[in-house]
């Protein structure tokens, strides 16, 4: 049986954040209703594929999926379970924002089999939340978080964002410690990216108002302090921006970096099926073997454990040494890669300039 991950996209949110370039926006109740309806139809249309697969994880992302009612969520999951075989211990995550759920909704979500919540907090400081254009306060987050715990959610991720305009290193450290004290199982800590097409890009893109942003040096200090601080609280960094308590690394996301097959359903969702990458509604385009190898490297290197040479050989029938020996040695000599017994992985310096390293792995 093929192992499959499901990604379900909910393109709705209360209000667009200033940095957000995802496919999402405010919606009416009717729009949500009809979207869920067609989503369910789409899910059911995959019966042919479903026969050959076992679903090992589901991720409902957005937007803000928690804009959906418990009933709508149940409809979606009925469609999924009617169509696919979902493993008993599958990791089932839903993204949510503080202030969009109550106990009743959470309890309804739990009944769908959702066993992991990913809460978009971004900052514990209301001033920073305001700068980002978030809809909630830190206090509202706390309420949501405790509510989720009370409803019995035992696997919670909290998103945090560094390098926010006006943020100091101390601000960031305080953010980290405050959240770590709450002891969620997982923390994603991202450095803010100015994506084109966002209000932030208008304001800060291409070097505009650089004085309001933490400089590069500070940004890197924030990054390295993150690992130091969180490790004291028992978190391990397992990917460039992801930290987890033992046993709580996000299996769904690891699937992306290890090239597990995934099916994306809903507006704009991406899929990897049969070595074709395609967005929802587009024609699949097959990746060449070279392109697959490249992906194995540039995705796999995101993970701290690195990429396994043995797995590479198993996957492609050709050794990593044959394909990438020269690159690996060049990067090792530059102090950017570590070439271990089985795994090739980024060094600390290699993480800082990982795009540079990864681009070397394009054939």
């Amino acid at each position, binding site marked *: 049986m093929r192992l499959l991950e499901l*990604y379900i996209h909910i393109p709705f949110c209360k209000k667009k954040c200033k940095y957000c370039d995802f496919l999402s926006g405010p919606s009416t109740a009717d729009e949500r209703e009809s979207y869920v309806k067609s989503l369910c139809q789409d899910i059911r249309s995959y019966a042919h594929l479903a026969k050959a697969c076992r679903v090992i994880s589901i991720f409902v992302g957005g937007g803000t999926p928690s804009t959906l009612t418990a009933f709508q969520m149940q409809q979606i999951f009925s469609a999924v379970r009617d169509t696919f075989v979902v493993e008993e211990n599958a990791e089932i995550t839903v993204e949510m924002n503080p202030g969009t759920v109550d106990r009743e909704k959470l309890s309804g979500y739990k009944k769908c089999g959702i066993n992991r919540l990913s809460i978009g907090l971004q900052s514990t400081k209301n001033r920073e939340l305001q700068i980002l254009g978030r809809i909630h306060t830190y206090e509202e987050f706390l309420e949501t978080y405790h509510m989720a715990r009370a409803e019995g959610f035992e696997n919670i991720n909290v998103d945090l964002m560094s390098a926010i305009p006006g943020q100091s290193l101390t601000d960031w450290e305080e953010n980290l410690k405050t959240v770590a004290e709450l002891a969620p199982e997982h923390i994603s800590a*991202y*450095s803010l*990216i100015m994506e084109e097409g966002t209000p932030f890009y208008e304001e800060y893109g291409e070097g505009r108002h650089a004085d309001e942003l933490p400089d*590069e*040096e500070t*940004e*890197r200090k924030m990054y390295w302090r993150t690992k130091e601080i969180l490790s004291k609280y028992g978190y391990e960094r397992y990917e*460039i*921006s992801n930290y987890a308590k033992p046993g709580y690394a996000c299996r769904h*996301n690891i699937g*992306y*970096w290890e090239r597990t097959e*995934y099916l*994306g359903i809903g507006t*704009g*969702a*991406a*899929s*990897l099926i049969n070595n074709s*990458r395609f*967005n929802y509604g587009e024609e699949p385009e097959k990746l060449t073997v070279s*392109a697959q190898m*490249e*992906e194995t490297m*540039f*995705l796999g290197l*995101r993970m701290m454990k690195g990429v396994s040479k043995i797995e590479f050989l198993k996957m492609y029938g050709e050794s990593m040494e044959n394909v990438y020996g020269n690159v690996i040695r060049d990067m090792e000599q*530059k102090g*950017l890669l570590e070439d271990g017994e089985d795994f090739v992985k980024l060094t600390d310096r290699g*993480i*800082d*300039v*990982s*795009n*540079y390293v*990864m*681009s*070397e792995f*394009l054939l």
Partner: protein
Amino acid sequence: MAGIDQSKIRNFCIVAHIDHGKSTLADRIIEQTGLLTSREMQAQVLDNMDLERERGITIKAQAVRTVYKAKDGEEYIFNLIDTPGHVDFNYEVSRSLAACDGAILVVDAAQGVEAQTLANVYLALDHDLDVMPVINKIDLPSAEPDRVMEEIEDIIGIEAHDAPLISAKTGLNVDQVLEQIVEKIPAPGGDPKAPLKALIFDSLYDSYKGVIVFCRLREGTVRKGTKIRMMATGAEADVVEVGYFGAGQFIPCDELEAGMVGYITASLKNVGDTRVGDTITDAANPCEEPLPGYKKVNPMVYCGLYPADGAKYPDLRDALEKLQLNDASLQFEPETSIALGFGFRCGFLGLLHLEIIQERLEREYNLDLVTTAPGVIYKVYKTNGDVIELTNPSNLPDPSEIEYMEEPMVKAEIMVTSEFIGTIMDLCQERRGEYLGMEYIEETRAVLHYRLPLNEIIYDFFDALKSRSRGYASFDYEMDGYQRSELVKLDILVNKEEVDALSFIVHADTAYERGRKMCEKLKEEIPRQLFEIPIQAAIGGKIIARETVRAMRKDVLAKCYGGDISRKRKLLEKQKEGKKRMRQVGNVEIPQKAFMSVLKLDDK
């Protein structure tokens, strides 16, 4: 085919300042005339043309023959000979003019007489051509045909009151131009029975026909089988074909006679044998004297051309050899740079010529090139009495062996409206120009005369001139010998290593400033790398300026999930592509365009 009556032939060219509408008028003339005489139509040469078409041969638009049925009921053959429109090709222009009997002068009805207008008219008058003015763009709201007519008469001194007032764009009054060509441009002379004497005004290499020579017959007749000799190069060959120029193809005919313009193909392998300006004669029955005015054209500007990918060196050599077949003024010889590896030092007529060649190599031969900063030929007088003609700064001898150096000079004429005289004089001053004089050609316009070092104008002088005069100044120059000058070699060190390909020769007074600017420019051009990179400018081992490219601190994408992967790939591909455009010098990757940085020191 029976001979064509000389009195029915008109050989002419069009001269104009850039953008005054030369090409548009040429297009209209071709459009409003036919390509064949009615007699030739019946002679079914069309079959031949089809053959040419199948073989896909197209000619450069250097010349075209059209047939005009005039109001007097007669058919006239027009040979319109194109002249290159740039000062780099002055010699070619003069040879094209020498192939004509008259010239149409196109003047913009709004802008009036400009520097190039003058230069081209004088060139035409030097060749005893009858100049026939045409005032173009009269459909523009800003057109002032009366003022321009006055200007032509006052400044140039030719009759302009019956000049056709036309719009080449709309075709308005172009018929008047055609009639005036018949009336005002003299028919050619020459004796078809005299020994052959033909002027080469262009040549090109075609992979089917070999060398094709464009010529104007002054005396005699040439036909298939004639054994011809090039009087300057001495090359001899048997004529394979003669013919004339249709629009876009070669149309063979039986013979070319005195007065005619056409082409000759012969058993020639090398365009170098058929130099522009040379005289073709009959090897068996040669004429006594060649036509006057031949000279070997020498390159004025040199630069290094290197393949971006070192493995493409043989491809670059092949491409240069092929281009040289078509362009005898292109010169190249192999050279080696520590920074750039194997390449060629190439000589060009000017910067435009350089750019054309560079572009052709990149487009037609698909080569990715690294070009070093262009320089001129310096004369180095050594203490031991030797004189070196220096085309590559790297070859400059040790200062202790140099007695003194000379640099090439030009005489420039700059036409400018009075409000910009000050700014333009400042510009010339900055470029070490020596003021020779100024004259007002009308109340608001003057011609400035300057003597300037060539190396000060080859880069961006023209751009600077345009930007400082809001586009109003125009400029022309001619070579004016060599002059002793205090010159030094400026070396650039990247990460403490001298990069030979970045060295350039500069006047001692501006060396410090240039060194500083060069470092600043390179700091912009060289992307941050894994380590800090010092960039230094030095003269004779003494550091005079320094900048630092800070180490790349961060190049990481925080997020990469299922929907980001395709985008991430594109980003990495772009990065990889960028690396390909870099040249590894020591440990440092230098972008190819950084080697041209010296050209951009005067930006803003």
